[in-house]
């Protein structure tokens, strides 16, 4: 029979885990999602407090200061960041988790290099360290502090493999031959590997990358948990195994779903250097035909159905409110308005839904690609706002870099209006066949200004 204090700690952990799983369950439905995150938050708080109060702990002041600094910074950042910057925020917070997992593994290895758990710590360190450096690169690319296009170094496959092999070699040598001084090299090479792995990935693929790093961090946390179950506070280890593996499994599946939405394999995203190559001998010809906002307004006013296909360009221009106004005006005139949301519109799966919801557009009006794609031949006007690659019919053409990517079939509608800032290419750096189609007209301008003109023209008419 263990002592009473330990029994109470055990029982509280069990309660926390139950609340945790209930919270996750609630998060899988829109109606209960908010309650879900609250449950999960309460469970987390219980787990942290009970760990802090566990017998045998020291360095209390350090712990309190560390939680205050990290917790305060994280909370402040998360509150002030704009909704469009959410993907890079998730990336950086995820990186922090990976870094924490690597640091915990480092402490475990510094304490003891003996036994099977040392190798578990090595594994946790490998995944955690790659996750933090990769996430930081993803953050820099999405934040625009670094060119978002694929950066391809010469002989990268060989170099990357060599760096990873050296890192693993140092780790195994440090543990197997009890040389803790090699741990520094071990971590250094892992961090370099994470950077090298993420550099050749273009900005358009970042959602998949963030999702995978999220899953990896979960696995790293789970591995750390394995290493801790034999330690002084085994319960903390079990909690980490459960939560970490839960995230690892859910995150892996989400990553595969997202890659599938782009008709790519996860391996292709990471090792294909997509977006670095230009298509040579493009089939596109003809010219882009501009149209005036007033003409578009008339066209939409007399349409039976208007479908709006928004992309990240709309969010960058902060045009969501104007788009909502436009939709309301059209509906007041008896026009049916729907929104066609591509699974990878925006920078994360579901990102576009969040941005439109923020503007107050009801989610009854948002339709998935699969739900709306068959309707396009009957649609009078499609308004493409700041989207490019996800509406590019080149995806249906053999030999295109986009070949096979599921797209919104907007080119099948009677009329397509593309709101676009200039004549540049999409995030993937590929020419868009849609813009040259007979039924397509270009409305040039910043999304907010252009949609503003449409709203003004509709109010007059």
């Amino acid at each position, binding site marked *: 029979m263990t002592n009473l204090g330990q029994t109470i700690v055990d029982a509280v952990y069990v309660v926390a885990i139950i609340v945790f*799983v209930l919270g*996750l369950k609630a*998060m*899988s*439905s829109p109606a209960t*999602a908010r309650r879900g*995150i609250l449950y999960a938050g309460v469970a*987390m708080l219980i787990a*942290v407090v009970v760990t802090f109060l566990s017998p045998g*702990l020291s*360095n209390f002041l*350090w712990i309190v200061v560390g*939680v205050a600094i*990290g917790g305060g*910074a*994280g*909370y402040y950042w*998360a509150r002030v*960041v*704009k909704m469009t910057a*959410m993907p890079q*925020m*998730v990336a950086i917070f995820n990186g*922090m988790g990976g870094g*924490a*997992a690597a640091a*915990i593994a480092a402490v*475990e290895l*510094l*304490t003891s290099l003996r036994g*099977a*758990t040392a190798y578990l710590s090595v594994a946790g360190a490998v995944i955690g360290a790659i996750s933090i450096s990769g996430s930081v690169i993803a953050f820099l690319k999405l934040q625009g502090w670094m060119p978002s296009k694929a950066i391809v170094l010469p002989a990268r496959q060989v170099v990357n493999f060599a760096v990873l092999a050296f890192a693993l070699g140092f780790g195994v040598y440090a543990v197997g031959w009890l040389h803790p001084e090699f741990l520094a090299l071990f971590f250094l090479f892992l961090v370099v590997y994470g950077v090298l792995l993420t550099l050749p990935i273009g900005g358009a693929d970042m959602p998949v990358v963030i*999702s995978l790093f999220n899953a990896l*961090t979960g696995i790293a946390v789970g591995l*750390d*948990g*394995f290493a*801790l179950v*034999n*330690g*002084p*506070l085994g319960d*903390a*280890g079990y909690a*980490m*195994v*459960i*939560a970490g593996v*839960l*995230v690892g499994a*859910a*995150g892996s599946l*989400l990553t595969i779903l997202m890659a599938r939405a782009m008709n790519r394999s996860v391996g292709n995203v990471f090792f294909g250097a997509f977006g670095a190559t230009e298509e040579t001998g493009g089939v596109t010809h003809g010219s882009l035909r501009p149209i005036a906002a007033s003409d578009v307004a008339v066209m939409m006013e007399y349409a039976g159905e208007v479908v709006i296909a928004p992309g990240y360009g709309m969010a960058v221009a902060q045009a969501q*409110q104007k788009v909502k106004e436009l939709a309301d005006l059209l509906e007041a005139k008896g026009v049916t308005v729907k929104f066609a949301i591509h699974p990878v519109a925006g920078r994360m799966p*579901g*990102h576009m839904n*969040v941005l439109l919801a*923020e*503007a*107050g557009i009801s989610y009854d009006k948002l339709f998935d690609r699969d739900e709306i794609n068959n309707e396009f031949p009957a649609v009078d006007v499609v308004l493409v706002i700041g989207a490019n690659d996800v509406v590019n019919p080149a995806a249906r053409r053999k030999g295109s870099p986009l070949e096979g990517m599921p797209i919104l079939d907007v080119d099948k509608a009677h009329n397509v209006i593309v709101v676009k800032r200039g004549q540049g290419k999409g995030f993937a750096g590929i020419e868009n066949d849609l813009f040259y189609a007979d039924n397509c007209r270009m409305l040039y301008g910043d999304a907010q200004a252009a949609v503003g003109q449409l709203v003004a023209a509709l109010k007059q008419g």
Partner: protein
Amino acid sequence: MAADLWTALFIAILAAFTGYEVISRVPVLLHTPLMSGSNFIHGIVLVGGIVALGFATTDLERIVGFVAVVMGAMNVTGGYAVTERILAMFDRSKRPAPGAAAPAVSPPGGKP
């Protein structure tokens, strides 16, 4: 000793199935909050950071453990706050009026 590792392995397998089941029934609408929410959940790493720092004996261990606690805490609070903000927008009953949405979430003095 090894029995604990086997127990942890059983738990891990069950947790993996649970994670798979939970996400396989989630609508695309919730993918972003779910990614953000699972990001928060692996913030449990903070517990490991507290254990690592709490039982650290040398200065080097304390420094690395401190780094783990700072990063873990940032993961937890940031992950929670981001997820909460996203989900608040799906809450029909408390939807803010159009135009009031943006100022309502960023406190004065925040980043423009």
